[in-house]
């Protein structure tokens, strides 16, 4: 019941209308400008698709890792020892890992994905942790007195508590992830939208460069509008009694 309810945010009519309009916008735009500039439409889609694939696989892995860490750390005695350690790791610049990852995995998808995890994990992890550590001790007391223990507590209390933070962290994390992947692709990971932009800049094709940037913007705007904003609003509603 609660599941069908949570899907409703995507089912409202205005949302559907906007969805179709907005989904077509970036595609239409890319199609239009590639025809206009006389380049192959498929290359742009391949570049964009490659970037998207990397960001989303790394995102899925980061969420998985973050949740495991949250469950391991939260409420344990070593929490106060662990958090400062994670804080230091967080401030380590992920770009510093890129050369060694490229040596290990080659300049391909695997290196890019590990590099992205090192970037995206932290906002997701810290955001989820902070929403669990929120000062609502009474909710935990209620969960326990009504019988939520062990795995049951995990599923019916800890996860829903972490959800608003997870959504918030996902938005920040994906933002940082896109920044990082475009950077990595400019440096040398191919193919990818960053690579596409860099090539255009190097060749002096400024029109294509500008179009590429607009296409990327439209694309990210679409993702935000369609997936994250409704989810953010809903999770905010759910986290307030």
């Amino acid at each position, binding site marked *: *019941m*609660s599941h069908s*309810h949570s899907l409703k945010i995507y089912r409202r009519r205005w949302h559907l209308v906007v969805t179709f309009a907005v989904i077509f916008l970036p595609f239409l735009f890319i199609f239009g400008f590639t025809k206009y500039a006389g380049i192959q439409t498929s290359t742009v889609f391949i570049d964009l698709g490659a970037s998207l694939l990397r960001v989303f696989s790394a995102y899925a892995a980061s969420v998985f890792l973050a949740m495991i860490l949250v469950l391991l750390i939260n409420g344990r005695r070593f929490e106060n020892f662990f958090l400062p350690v994670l804080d230091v790791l967080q401030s380590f610049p992920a770009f510093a890992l890129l050369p060694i990852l490229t040596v290990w995995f080659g300049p391909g998808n695997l290196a890019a994905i590990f590099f992205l995890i090192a970037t995206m994990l932290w906002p997701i992890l810290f955001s989820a942790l902070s929403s669990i550590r929120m000062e*609502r001790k*009474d*909710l935990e*007391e*209620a*969960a*326990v*007195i*009504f*019988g*939520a223990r062990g795995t*049951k507590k995990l599923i*019916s*209390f800890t996860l*829903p508590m972490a*959800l608003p933070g997870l959504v918030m962290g996902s938005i920040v994390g994906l933002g940082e992830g896109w920044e990082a992947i475009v950077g990595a692709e400019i440096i040398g990971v191919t193919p990818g939208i960053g690579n596409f932009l860099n090539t255009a800049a190097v060749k002096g094709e400024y029109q294509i460069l500008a179009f590429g940037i607009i296409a990327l913007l439209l694309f990210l705007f679409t993702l935000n509008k369609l997936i994250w904003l409704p989810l953010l609003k809903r999770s905010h*509603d*759910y*986290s*307030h*009694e």
Partner: protein
Amino acid sequence: MTTPMNDEFAIVASGLDHVFIADDGKKTDAVKDVSFSVRRGEFFTILGPSGCGKSTLLRILAGMIEPTKGSVKFPAGHEPQNISMVFQSFALFPWLTVYKNVEFGLTMREVPKHDQKRLTEEHIKEMGLEGFEQSYPKDLSGGMKQRVGIARALAISPNILLMDEPFSALDAFTAENLRKDMLSLWLRDTITIIMVTHLIDEAIEMSDRVLIMTPRPGKVEIVLPVQLDRPRNKRSKEFFELADSIARYVKI
């Protein structure tokens, strides 16, 4: 002080101490040498000013806090299957609907599905929450939220119901209404209620006996019976006299 264990009692607390250690290492006696027993079916109230350790005491009874010393016992053969609790802050799960909140304890206890449905619907109806089953807590008034809190607590058919200042967060009218509803529920079902409050009138209106706690350290000042006929007239001479004598025992 030792209390004989027999069928008469629902819960016997003896020699309870709880030392609270703050982050800076400073120790406070939140609860100090507290002993009392509550009869089965009794409405027992723990009364005291804020910070006297009464909420800590309630959590020790609930098994949520381990006492530094002493024990909480239930007579053999009468161990409660269920201890339930109503919270001052309602403590409803914001991600669950009213229905799912009331059902929560039954789901956790893996009660058979059709009993879950029956008990949930029964308690929703009993607390006057029909039509709000699919609402979320944030859309309810304070009084309605506490009705959900009480329905959730009663749905698991508790032998002992703990109430932590259940009416303190509500306006006077709503609180009065809910107190009356609570009393008629208690009179109908034989359930042992232990309530924590800082309101003398509330304690007299509802309880069979009142335990008065003194802060720093949290100790038992006295346990007084309330021998007024029910329903109690809050404007009667006896009510005021009892309120006065209780007030003399309450130290801040």
